């Protein structure tokens, strides 16, 4: 890959993307994210941000809405959704 991967935290509101993978060195965090439903290929889209430092954030994930902190969300790598 020639450029830095896009992280979920880099996105503006309502940008529809697909999950490429997870970057975390923290394996436990990856399992927690997967258990609640994040997976490669899933469509994900930031919906809302908190008042201070845009933290936490809520994202649309398939039919569900998940709230998470930016430091955790940064582990999710995304690419633009082509549809």
């Amino acid at each position, binding site marked *: 890959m020639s450029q830095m991967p896009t992280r979920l935290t880099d996105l503006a509101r309502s940008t529809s993307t697909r999950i490429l993978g997870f970057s975390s060195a923290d394996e436990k965090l990856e399992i*927690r994210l997967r258990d*609640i439903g994040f997976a490669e290929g899933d469509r994900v889209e930031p919906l809302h941000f908190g008042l201070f430092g845009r933290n936490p954030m809520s994202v649309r994930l398939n039919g569900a809405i*998940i709230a998470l902190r930016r430091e955790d969300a940064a582990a999710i790598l995304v690419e633009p959704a082509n549809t």
Partner: protein
Amino acid sequence: MSSVETQTRPVRLALLGAPNCGKTSLFNALTGGRAKVANYPGVTVEYRKGVFDLPDGRAIELLDLPGVYGDTGKSMDERVAIDAVSGRLENERAPDAILFVLDAAHIETHLHNVLQAKNYGLPIVLVLNMMDMAARDGLNIDIPALEQELGIPVVNCVAVRASGRAHLLDFLTEWSGDVAYGSAPKPSEERGEVREIQQRARSATRHAVSRIPQTETITHRIDKIVLHPVLGLLILLAILFVMFQAVYTWAGPAMDLIDSAIGGLQGAVEAIIPDGLLQSVIVDGAIAGVGAVLVFLPQIVILFAFILLLEASGYMARAAFLVDTLMAKVGLNGRAFIPLLSSFACAIPGIMAARTIEQEKDRLTTILIAPLMTCSARWPVYFMIIAAFIPQGRVGPFSQQGLVAFGLILVGILFAFIMAFIFKKTLSRGESGGLLIELPSYKTPVFRDYLMGIWDRAMIFVNRAGRIILPASIIIWVLTTFPRNAGSIGETYAGMLGNILLPILKPIGFNLEMSIALIPAMAAREVAVSSLATIYAVQGDGIEGQMSAVIASQWSMATGLAFLAWFVFAPQCLSTFAIIRKETHSWKWPLFAFGYLFVLAYAAAAVTYHTAVAFGLG
């Protein structure tokens, strides 16, 4: 394979699934059970058992378990659920089979959890709940195709409607027979890491699920307002504010009614039973004590009507989202908000709800500060003192008394944050976990479940009045009445006990009656009110009616305010320390909590008293 076995013990099924998928609703609907329904992750901290009959009359035992994502058991309550289906729960037989409940609207997100659950090795059926809402959102699920893909039976269901459960009951009638005879197929194991299992689940949904793309659901539209960074916080504050105002302004007529009923009862007893000890123990002991607390029932009911509505509608998780940054500032986990909010009702369920917090250090901090949230048992004390010393006027549209109560609650919250900050820097240093919760779809609460929840809370309050406050009132009556030749309250047994404490409490403005009342208030905080009622009833022949009127005439403003300040922090209720001991498996933490709360309460009362005296309110 004998039929004898099936007749001797009913088939036991466990409800497993993610938080908020409707397990508890299904449990309540099937068993007619009295389990609490809520809409935010982590309310069913303990598992519940119930029984229901199939259409053919056979009984089924049902276990309701805490919500789980995945199979690793990251928090304490997730481990309870996993232990239950693995047969590792102490004194509890393993279930015969699993009903895996899934919110159909979230099928793409959570389907891999079903595949993970196949690995427990029990017969399993997937129950797709809330099919009506999923269909409304444009979701179409091909059930035979899904069964094919997953290799387990799949049943659709609308837990809250009888017609929506009929299909599930028909299925269970057949399936439970197979389970009982051991002829229900055990699912094949799902091998691989969570990543591979997820990919298999995604492939299953691609084959069996289609969704009409919808840009906006009702939930998204509401969230645009409710989760707005500024507007959302204002709405949250407004909701809390209205809640506390309502408790004051709506409860009045009902409280007057209860109060006059109690007065009437006392009059009736005095008319029937002649003057003497028997009349005194009933009128001044039992009725004065229990009545002084029962009068607050309308306020407790209104408080819970709000809390349960916020839970059942799906708003509570949004509130957790909105306050998360604030929680992060003091080093707390965002999930701590839910246990802390429960603590406004009672610290005990609050401390237990802390089990949903994954990091042990965060859980400990949350447990230690939970008693600083103003629990409902402290409300009667607040109500009494506020009614005695704060005029009933209005500030703009708001009740002045409501404003003071709101202020006291804010002081409790402020100190909870300060203490959390200190604890995180010292005792419970360590990494803090993230928020990571699901924001459930907004729902109209099921009316019956909602009323049952309020009823349960009201009954807990009334039962406490019977079980704790009645005996405490009679003990106080005995201690304040004997020896018979006592000339003043100071010479009674209660006075002797109070006099031991008085040297410690006098510097903060407390009088002898208050010192006496603090002793039985260790059992439950609201006993302070009933004890004072009994003490003054015994002392001043014929003082009846509202306690606040008595107190207004007997205490100085400074003393009243010091008593209020004391109760913002007071380390009073023994059950709270018992639960801290149980949840931390040590004596160290309950003793520590008692110590720090005592120091805070004492300091707050001292500062309040001396400030008030300096302003001439002594």
